[in-house]
């Protein structure tokens, strides 16, 4: 554990010196600031930032993590020739990546909002947005590591992550829409809620959307759905599902990595 922490700090030092990642933070800041300049309405800024987050955070986190995984393969081998456990090493690298990406994203949003002078009306909403961005980062870092461990070929690994991104941002929702359309004569709230649990992007989106007191204004009706996901229990359920999404793919990669030929 001590070595894990040591490795994590070095990894973090390295990552935070990558200019490309600061460009990510800067773009997030730029986008949030731009939203504020275009409209003074915080609710709209929040929703626009949510859309941006849902598209950009999984893409950047997933793509960067998987590329980084392959690009540092030799260093991984070098480190593993030292007295370090494979599990320790993988965990340290994953945690460092997730931490760096989360920090930079949060810093970006915060910087963008600072222009507004922190006189936020929708404080809670922005905090939920930050939480959902964090979970998206963690989930897609995890998926990237799983892809990295599963495929030795970089092209395959990167493609797998991009496919996961496409699936969770668009295709999974298309599946839900199809289910709703085909079985419109049945009570569908519960199956649909189950389906949303299967996508970290849906969960992250609903975490913010359901928290807004104006959810009804945006057309979110259906008491059952709100009860199932928006109540205290439901929030706990969706957060638990997001925790699983953040940890399970990584844990799988961790298990595989321990027995893998490098």
């Amino acid at each position, binding site marked *: 554990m001590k070595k894990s922490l040591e490795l994590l700090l070095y990894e973090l030092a390295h990552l935070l010196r990558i200019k490309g990642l600061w460009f990510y933070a800067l773009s997030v800041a730029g986008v949030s600031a731009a939203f504020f300049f275009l409209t003074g309405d915080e609710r709209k800024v929040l929703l626009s930032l949510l859309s941006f987050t849902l598209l950009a955070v999984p893409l950047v986190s997933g793509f960067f993590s998987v590329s980084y995984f392959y690009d540092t393969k030799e260093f991984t081998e070098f480190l593993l020739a030292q007295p370090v456990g494979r599990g320790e090493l993988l965990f340290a690298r994953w945690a460092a990546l997730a931490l760096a990406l989360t920090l930079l994203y949060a810093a970006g949003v915060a910087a963008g909002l600072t222009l507004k002078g922190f006189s936020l009306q929708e404080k809670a909403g922005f905090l939920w947005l930050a939480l959902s961005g964090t979970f998206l980062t963690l989930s897609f870092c995890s998926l990237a590591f799983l892809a990295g461990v599963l495929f030795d070929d970089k092209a395959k690994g990167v493609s797998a992550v991009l496919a996961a991104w496409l699936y969770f941002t668009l295709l999974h929702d298309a599946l*839900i829409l199809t289910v709703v359309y085909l079985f419109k004569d049945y009570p569908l*709230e519960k199956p649909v809620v189950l389906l949303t649990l299967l996508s970290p992007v849906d969960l992250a*989106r609903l975490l913010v959307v359901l928290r807004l007191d104006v959810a009804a204004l945006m*057309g979110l009706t259906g008491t059952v759905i709100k009860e199932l996901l928006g109540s205290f229990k439901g929030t706990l359920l969706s957060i638990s599902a997001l925790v699983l999404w953040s940890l399970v793919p990584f844990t799988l990669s961790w298990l595989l990595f321990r027995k893998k030929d490098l």
Partner: protein
Amino acid sequence: MGRPASPPPHAPLLLTLLLAALSFAQTLVVCKDCRITSIKKALELAKDGDTILVKGGTYREGTIVVNKRVRLVGEGYPTLDGQRKYEVLKVTADGVTVEGFRIVNSGVSELEDLAGLKVEGASGCVIKDNLFENNFWAVYLSGVRGCRVEDNLIKGSGEQSEAYTGNGIHLWHCERVLIRRNRIEGHRDGIYLEFVKDSLILENEARNNWRYGLHFMFSHGNTYARNLFERNGAGVAVMYTKKVVMVNNTFRDNWGDSSYGLLLKAITDSLVVNNRFYRNTVGILMDECQRTLIKENDFVENGWAVKLWANSANNTITYNNFLANTFDFATNSRRSENELRRNYWSAYRGYDLNRDGIGDVPYKPVKLFAYIVENNPAASVLLKSPLVELLNLAEEAFPALTAVELKDPEPLLRRVEWRFYE
């Protein structure tokens, strides 16, 4: 626009009687240190046409029954306290004025509608400039004609239970009543009318009532103008009524699962003109609504600006502004027998090559996603999903995707200018 309450028949005769009464009229003063210390005593002593002037202080006299034609005037808002047991004031005589009182704590009963002030079967009453607090029902008019309820401030307990809060201003079988400039909050319904005719409801503000801001049924020929309905539990519901005129009202921030700015349920031959609908879950919900004109209204940032059920027909929706609503329109059928023409839609992306101010391609306000949500609310989990945003874009690019035929064949390119009379 409606007319003020018209003078009663036999006006000259009444006027003569009134003058005769006035010539003998006297003023009885009630206060703790006066000769008369109770309002009940003053009422015993009074004759028709007298004025009873009540000075500051708190009066706990059970139910005070006003059965003579008197002016009951409070000075310094004396408190009439029902002690949570009694109906506070009950008016049974014609031509009674109640003015300047603070009427609090009416009794609560499961059997009777106990009120702060009840007028029963009388005409010509004036209820003006009173404060009502914490009453079961506040102002309750039953079988009343030619009455004015003006400038009252009415606050209910806010408890969300039928057993503890009734309506703020409640009218039952009334005619020619003017309800004006009252502020009502914390009741069940702000203003409730049932079997009420030829009345004017003007410039009232109903906020934070836990059911409806305004609720009426079977009340034909009334006019509602320049009222504000804000943050009421389920908004405003009007039902089973003909010839309603609603002008210059504001419906704002009515949020909730089955909440709306304005529910038009079985409304026919009515006018909804020059109103503003801001940030309601549903701006107007039209259910069994016939031959109604919806014109020159602003629908701004509502969840749905208009929901139009298939059982509504022959309505005309024209020259309205639809601005930044999540969904402009929803309906539960593919066809619609209503006229939708020449509205301004902020979501319209068409062009106007001949520069006549009218878009060259029709606007289809029912989005595919809105249609799916309407038919199965479970789809609403996809709200704000990138897929749905993509779908909306695709619909604009490929009009064939649109699920519902309803369209505005002549969408306006510029916002409709109409004047809101403040």
